[in-house]
């Protein structure tokens, strides 16, 4: 494995922060080596400095994309941590549907939900499955489910909706597996009716959100933990701007907004916490 020097560590860490907002601890040089070593070798670079220079000067941004794919953590599961999905099903969705249902039966109920760091899509598909089970007659609703992630590789896999058995291992009850997936060899593919409900696209949370509009529910779980404090403050401030006044924000179960965004107040429901704007 290609070794990284202290100078290169500084350079590469700064570069990764610039392109992704992800802050990597420079004391963990192995992390840089295990994740970037193969990319350096593949592109014929004999040092990380060379890789850095190549990545920066390359107009096609192929190396930059590979670095982001390698650096971003894509560990997600279907129904990861049951609590937020129970919260969604038993409190947030029923309340929002009540609030959003128009007086005229001719009009549809509009709902917009955003999975802000959708990784390989499991979170958003889990949300789609819950909605499908809750609302048998979807014709009365116009529900937009958007998933965004910084990694092209993750967005592509999410859009395919195809998972190997390691990615399926936990979280998904057997009946849901049978009902919503088709098995082929050792992999499972989400069925078309669920896939048609969702949309994935690339987005760097550090950049302006540009034209996404306002959402009724935003999931932003376990991504801000990779950012510095000032970057977290900026992120949640932008998220507050993108959330409807009576909308809901859900963050990771071990995350906190104390000292990060005073515009949100935490509220408790059973075993979970959600946030609303003041």
């Amino acid at each position: 494995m290609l070794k990284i020097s202290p100078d290169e560590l500084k350079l590469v860490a700064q570069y990764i922060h610039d392109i992704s907002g992800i802050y990597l601890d420079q004391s963990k040089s192995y992390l840089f080596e295990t994740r970037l070593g193969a990319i350096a070798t593949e592109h014929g670079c004999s040092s990380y400095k060379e890789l850095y220079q190549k990545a920066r000067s390359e107009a096609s941004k192929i190396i930059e994309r590979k670095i982001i794919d390698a650096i971003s953590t894509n560990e997600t599961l279907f129904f990861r941590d049951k609590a937020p999905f129970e919260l969604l099903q038993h409190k947030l969705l029923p309340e929002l549907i009540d609030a959003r249902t128009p007086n005229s039966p001719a009009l549809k109920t509009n709902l917009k939900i955003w999975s802000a760091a959708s990784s390989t899509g499991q979170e958003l598909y889990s949300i789609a499955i819950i909605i499908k089970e809750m609302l048998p007659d979807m014709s009365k609703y116009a529900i937009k489910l958007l998933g965004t992630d910084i990694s092209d590789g993750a967005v592509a896999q999410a859009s395919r909706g195809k998972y190997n058995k390691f990615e399926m291992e936990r979280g998904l009850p057997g009946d849901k597996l049978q009902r919503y997936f088709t098995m082929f060899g050792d992999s499972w593919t989400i069925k078309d009716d669920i896939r048609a409900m969702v949309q994935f696209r690339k987005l760097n949370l550090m950049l302006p959100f540009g034209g996404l509009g306002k959402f009724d529910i935003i999931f932003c779980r376990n991504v801000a933990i990779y950012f510095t404090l000032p970057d977290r403050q900026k992120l949640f401030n932008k998220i507050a701007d993108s959330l409807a006044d009576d909308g809901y924000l859900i963050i990771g179960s071990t995350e906190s907004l104390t000292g990060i965004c005073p515009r949100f107040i935490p509220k408790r429901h059973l075993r979970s916490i959600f946030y609303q704007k003041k």
Partner: protein
Amino acid sequence: MRNMTILVVDDDPVIRRMLEKRLEKEGYEVLLAEDGYQARKILPQQHIDVVLTDLMMPGSIGGIEVLDIAKKISHDIEVILITAHSSVDTAVEAMKKGAADYLEKPINFDELFLRLEKIANVQSIMRNAQDLSQAMDTTESAAAVTIQNLEIRSAELQERMDSIEAILRDDLITPYDRIDKVFDLLAARDNLIT
């Protein structure tokens, strides 16, 4: 002991016995089925890690059907098919249905043992990963309870600070009354939800 149970399914008694002997010598626990029907009976009753089945067997339960039955019981059961050279295409089809591998007749035992070792390695990595993720879940949910309590508590304290500030700035009441009110608020602190 290798800690792995293998179900051998073959209608040929000579092959059955040979596989049993060689596999037991390697330290595997071996169960035998004379055909697909017997395999169907054994599979739900025993914990089986690997099924080693002939592709072509008399009756309507052949190797492919055994594969289907095993996978329906648990996706963790790995199935290796034993095929004649002429039926390699069928074996490839079986891989698409979730078979781990296939072996051509006559069985090369070194090859078989290598495949089994590979399966054992993957299974132990999977178990390890499951243990780790369970440990992570436990840590995470314990941390979540602590963090959520702190989150709510700090929000309540912030709210109280805001109320105190509002009282202290209230020009409509006398300074003494303001202090009284502030003390009232502070006295209520024991009622904070923890």
